[in-house]
């Protein structure tokens, strides 16, 4: 150290945040959102939905061993996983849409990270007391009180974590059956692994990582600024009204000073540990707790509320220049997000409505490509799969078109006829099919397979090929 300059700090040390309890409109909204969202998460697996005898009756179920996903009236096979892509696109654009309209409402109210962190902070407060008590306890030397309080806090966190992980597995198994198994401690290793993993991740994310997740791990908080414009709802501190700030004693005059009494209530309640009076910051999850805190203070001082409030840049400027505040919900940005949502939603809806209850797949033999028979005709082999997506056993007729003198023969045990191929409910029928036909002109001729349900309306087709050699 030659010149005595302070060493550069490359990493910021994590400061623990002890959010203070707060009462108000947005706090109530957050409680309501938490109860609703956690309620959905914990109870949804127990909803029932009757699908008949050949399918599970759980409303929301991802059945990995059977490779089916159920969501109320929707049923998805692995071949239709593109619906998942659609859902993800919808979810992403809906998030962008909500962001451009109302700012980071997702972050503030609905994100699992926020909801579980909120729940964990609540547990912390119930056991250890409010902000000041918690800070004191954290600094206090180890003793009986600190030990049992921390042990109780962490135990409760782990219990919540276990419930979280325990509920997660219900989405992948029949919930009542699995619940009974869990009660009898008869849990498969895979399930146990998931419960433990999610117990641990919940404990870690909501107990320790908390705001660090939003600041350093979450990609959305980094790119949400791309969805922001001057009309996006943000948490704003009314600088013009608040400054110059200063301490206030009862009876002092409000002349020549701002309404901010520098009580730091807004800072103490912030779960992200920021000072909103410094302006819009990346860390701000727009939960509105600082608004509640400040409004409470303003009420006590008998000043109008709204020194900190949900605001837009446009409105801030309008107020500054004495113009009328206006909401600009309908903007180019919001309308094209809405248009994308409508478009993707319409495509998905169309897909779901027109989802065929039967699907035909035909795989042409690679080796040999074709077989010349003794009468000079050509035979091709195919692996045919028939997906019966209904919940009833069905029989189908397989027809081939576009070839001269084509005959279909099913190779397999027993005697199967192409006019009556049986496929069980909710199963894939696999058939070895030989097609014999006069030699077509083209080495690679078109062969159109048509599948029709016997005595039913459902049908599908597959455009395949019929190979033959040169003369």
């Amino acid at each position, binding site marked *: 150290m030659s010149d005595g*300059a302070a*060493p550069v700090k490359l990493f910021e040390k994590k400061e623990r945040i002890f959010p203070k309890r707060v009462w108000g409109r947005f706090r109530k909204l957050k409680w309501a959102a938490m109860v609703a969202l956690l309620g959905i998460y914990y109870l949804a697996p127990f909803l029932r939905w009757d699908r008949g005898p050949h399918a599970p009756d759980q409303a929301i179920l991802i059945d990995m061993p059977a490779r089916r996903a159920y969501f109320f009236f929707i049923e998805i096979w692995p071949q239709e996983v593109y619906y998942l892509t659609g859902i993800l696109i919808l979810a992403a654009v809906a998030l962008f849409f909500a962001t451009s309209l109302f700012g980071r409402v997702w972050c503030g109210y609905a994100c699992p990270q926020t909801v579980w962190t909120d729940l964990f902070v609540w547990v912390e407060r119930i056991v250890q007391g409010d902000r000041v008590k918690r800070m004191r306890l954290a600094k206090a030397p180890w003793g009986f009180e600190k030990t049992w309080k921390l042990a109780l806090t962490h135990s409760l966190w782990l219990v919540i974590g276990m419930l979280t992980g325990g509920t997660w597995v219900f989405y992948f198994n029949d919930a009542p059956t699995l619940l009974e198994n869990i009660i009898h401690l008869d849990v498969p290793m895979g399930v146990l692994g998931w419960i433990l993993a999610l117990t641990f991740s919940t404990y870690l994310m909501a107990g320790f990582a908390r705001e660090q997740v939003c600041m350093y791990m979450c990609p959305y908080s980094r790119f949400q600024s791309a969805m922001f414009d001057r009309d996006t709802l943000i948490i704003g501190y009314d600088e013009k009204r608040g400054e110059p700030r200063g301490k206030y004693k009862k009876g002092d005059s409000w002349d020549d000073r701002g309404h901010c009494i520098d009580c730091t209530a807004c800072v103490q309640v912030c779960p992200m540990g920021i000072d909103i009076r410094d302006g819009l910051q990346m860390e701000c999850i727009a939960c509105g707790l600082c608004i509640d805190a400040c409004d409470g203070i303003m009420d006590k001082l008998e000043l109008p509320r709204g020194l900190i409030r949900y605001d837009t840049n446009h409105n801030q400027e309008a107020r500054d220049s004495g113009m009328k505040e206006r909401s600009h919900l309908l903007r180019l940005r919001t309308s094209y997000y809405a248009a994308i949502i409508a478009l993707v939603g319409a495509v998905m809806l169309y897909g779901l409505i027109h989802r065929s209850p039967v699907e035909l797949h035909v795989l042409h033999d690679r080796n*040999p490509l074709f077989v010349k028979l*003794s*009468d000079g005709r050509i035979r091709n082999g195919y692996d045919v799969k028939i997906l019966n997506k209904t919940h009833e056993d069905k029989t189908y007729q397989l027809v081939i078109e576009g070839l001269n003198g084509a005959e279909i023969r099913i190779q397999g*045990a*027993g005697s199967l006829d192409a006019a009556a191929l049986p496929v069980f409910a909710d199963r894939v029928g696999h058939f070895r099919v030989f097609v014999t036909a006069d030699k077509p002109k083209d080495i690679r001729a078109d062969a159109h397979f048509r599948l029709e349900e016997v005595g039913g309306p459902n049908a599908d087709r597959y455009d395949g090929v019929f190979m033959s050699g040169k003369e």
Partner: protein
Amino acid sequence: MSKKKDIDSFTGIETTGHEWDGIKELNNPSPRWWLIVFFLCCVWSVGYWVLYPAWPTFSGDGERGGTEGSMGWTQYDQLKDSQAEIRARKSAYLASFEAASFEEVQADEALYAFAVAGGAAAFKDNCATCHSTGGAGSAGYPNLNDDDWLWGGDIDTIHETIRVGVRAVHDETRFSEMPAFGDMLSETEIADVAQHVISLSQDGDDSAGGAQVFADNCAACHSENGRGDHALGAPDLADAIWFYGDTKADIMSQVRKPKHGVMPTWEARLDANTIRQLAIYVHSLGGGTN
């Protein structure tokens, strides 16, 4: 060795003393959590040495020349176990497969699938070398997918052919030999009879009198209409499938000095069940008859 610590003035961190073009390397310690995990791994590994085969021994004694580990676990045993598991799974079918006739197997979906799967595997190991992986054969090696059979295409006959082979070292082997007519017929007669044979299956001129030559010399085995005879292994000359080529020159060459292929007997090399599976598999390729 170094006289005094070299401290980087900007960050306040000790350097390693290495310098490249004026850039010094900071000697940052590894993160503490990393170090703890590293030491935990070291401790953990000791457990492995005790429990599992770990160290080679100088004497080369012990299980495969190394320490055995207290659990007595080896990958060889693991392989044995998983093979035993497969065998057990197979044996569930094997007993009923052994007891069932070909007709019974063909009527039973599970047994049939078992037979075809086993036959397909055995085919690739033993037969694909000549008959090719899809059973399509090549010149001189019959295509097993088509409906033209030298010795017959029902399962029992296919089974017998696989069992005893063709012109193989087996007391009951199938045997046929076409005489070399190059010594017995003139070139003109050979050309005429070749022309006649072509006319049996393709539209062609049959005015040269080859029909008489055919009736005198060939019909005994290939039958009068040239349709051949499974009992003798005589090929059908009136169909569209040609073993050694369908041009006049090919046919004349085969009349003059016929080629004779050999198929080994599999009775001594494969067990009875495998041969039965192979017969069912070959029959399932598409050309099998009833």
